[in-house]
């Protein structure tokens, strides 16, 4: 039986599902394309970027966009385009890192909380209730205050702020999975709790998990930009989009508008790409949610 299904699938062509996605969700596919470009640019920043993102050049401060510096230079004479390209790497590392970490740990807690139920579930849910009642940026700020700034710490801080939200989403799907006959069967067969959660429950909440993960990606990039803008995220001289909007970009906005316009555009396009891709993924995964 597995052999026949396999053959059928190969006949349909490996690219069929992708082409169908492209046809049904052109906007989402466009988002995915932008994400791919961003990932490539982030990976190959050293080769793609026209200049050094951190080298100051005090002979070329506040240069307007020209042939040598397409997006102009900043208050330290650094090339804005290069900083944006290297900033993509920062944004992606933090976006993917924190989303994966937050969604996975939060999801695991959600599945476990739904599976065990009772007092465990009650306590976890009350704790989640409390954390969820604070704006996400306030939670992230508080965590940064405790653990400090830096790329790795920012990943942890953003992941932790996503955690309760991820827990909620996955738990609500896991609650219905728990009532399924196969979970009962696994329990009757004497599977351990850990095995039931890992092998029987987790795979069946994968769809909401993935949808949530993509929606976190855009949010994480926005959150990173906001925190860096406040001086609570990435610190100089590391190139990061939010950081580029801080300080001189605001103070000299009229004199050097390119310093404020381009990094903001980069944030907006990146987040937009993740958002439209996430929306399309949600529609494709869960037709019931389609509107």
């Amino acid at each position, binding site marked *: 039986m597995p052999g026949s299904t396999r053959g059928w699938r190969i006949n349909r062509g490996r690219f069929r599902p992708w082409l169908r996605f492209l046809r049904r969700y052109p906007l989402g596919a466009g988002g995915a394309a932008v994400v791919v470009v961003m990932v490539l640019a982030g990976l190959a920043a050293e080769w793609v970027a026209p200049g050094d993102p951190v080298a100051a050049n005090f002979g070329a401060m506040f240069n307007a966009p020209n042939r040598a510096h397409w997006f102009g230079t900043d208050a330290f004479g650094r090339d804005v385009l290069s900083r944006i390209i290297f900033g993509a790497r920062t944004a992606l590392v933090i976006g993917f890192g924190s989303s994966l970490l937050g969604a996975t740990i939060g999801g695991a807690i959600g599945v476990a909380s739904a599976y065990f139920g009772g007092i465990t579930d009650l306590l976890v849910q009350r704790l989640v209730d*409390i954390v969820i009642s604070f704006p996400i940026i*306030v939670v992230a700020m508080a965590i940064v205050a405790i653990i400090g700034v830096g790329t790795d710490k920012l990943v942890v801080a953003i992941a932790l702020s996503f955690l309760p939200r991820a827990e909620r989403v996955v738990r609500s799907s896991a609650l219905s999975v728990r009532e399924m006959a196969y979970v009962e069967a696994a329990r009757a067969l004497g599977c351990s709790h850990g095995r039931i959660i890992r092998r029987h429950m987790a795979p069946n909440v994968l769809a909401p998990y993935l949808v949530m993960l993509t929606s976190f990606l855009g949010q994480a990039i926005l959150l990173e930009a906001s925190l860096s803008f406040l001086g609570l995220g990435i610190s100089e001289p590391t190139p990061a989009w939010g950081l580029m909007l801080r300080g001189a970009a605001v103070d000299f906005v009229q004199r050097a*508008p390119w310093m404020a316009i381009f990094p903001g555009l980069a944030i907006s396009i990146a987040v937009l790409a993740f958002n439209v891709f996430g929306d399309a993924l949600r529609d494709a995964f869960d037709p019931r949610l389609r509107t």
Partner: protein
Amino acid sequence: MTRYIITRFLLMVPTLLAVGVLIFVLVRVVPGDIVALRLVLGGSFVTPQVIEAERARLGLNKSMWAQFSEWMTGMLRLDLGRSMWSGEPVASEIGLRLQLSLELAVIATAIATAIAIPMGTLAAVYRGRWVDQVIQVISVAGLSVPSFWLGILMILFLLSVFNYLPPLVFTPLWQDPKANLAQLIWPALAVGYRYSAVATRMTRSALLEVLREDYVRTASAKGLATGIILRKHALPNALMPVVTVIGLEFAFLIGGLVVTEQVFNLNGIGKLIVDAIAQRDYTLIQGLMLLVAVGYILVNFLVDLLYAWIDPRVAYQ
């Protein structure tokens, strides 16, 4: 109904208590206390005796439990304590800024609602057509553009086109409504865009759900005009999730305007939160976090009451 309101109200107490305990412990986990920050990082040499004396003055040398019970007994008298940094009562520190933040949140909500409900309705009615697609793209863009960047662009636009900068000093609404609005309308627009995007998407999907219902088909089969169907049958039934979203976003705006306030140089609750955390001002942080939690819980409560008002089927036992 009255009984429901009272129980709901009393249920707030344990939640707030839990918030209080959590915040209390959390602020003390943050490395470095206010004395270390103010005296030691100040650069001047201070003897350990002076540091100890300052700790004692602020009550930081007492046990955690003693500090907590002191804070709690103060709360019973509706006294939030004094800011460790400025020495002013926390309540008045917050009161000063709350006026601005609350007003900003109200204006942003008004803008968002005024945009979202017609836009969401249009998108739902013309589902799949170009109107819908345009509105959807505008909304998803609203979720993607950082509101602080939008704020920077607004300032840039006002400066370069009109050579105008919004006033930097806050004037209360009743003192000079024009100056007040001139300052707050821009940040309200900047956050209102994102806010309206959230609400538009919710209006659209809630309305689409309702438009599938049998009673809507019946109404249209008996020849009612689309406008009447929407106003009398569809919208009231689709409004509940929209009201929830608007309410929760409003609650989050009070503390969540941190970044936008920074761009427009507003002295609001968000800025106070940043400063209080940076200065390790324990009493002020505790007061602010309680305020944010109370705001969220109260809005939830009001949304529930509004449900009962919008939907007569909701009867609270």
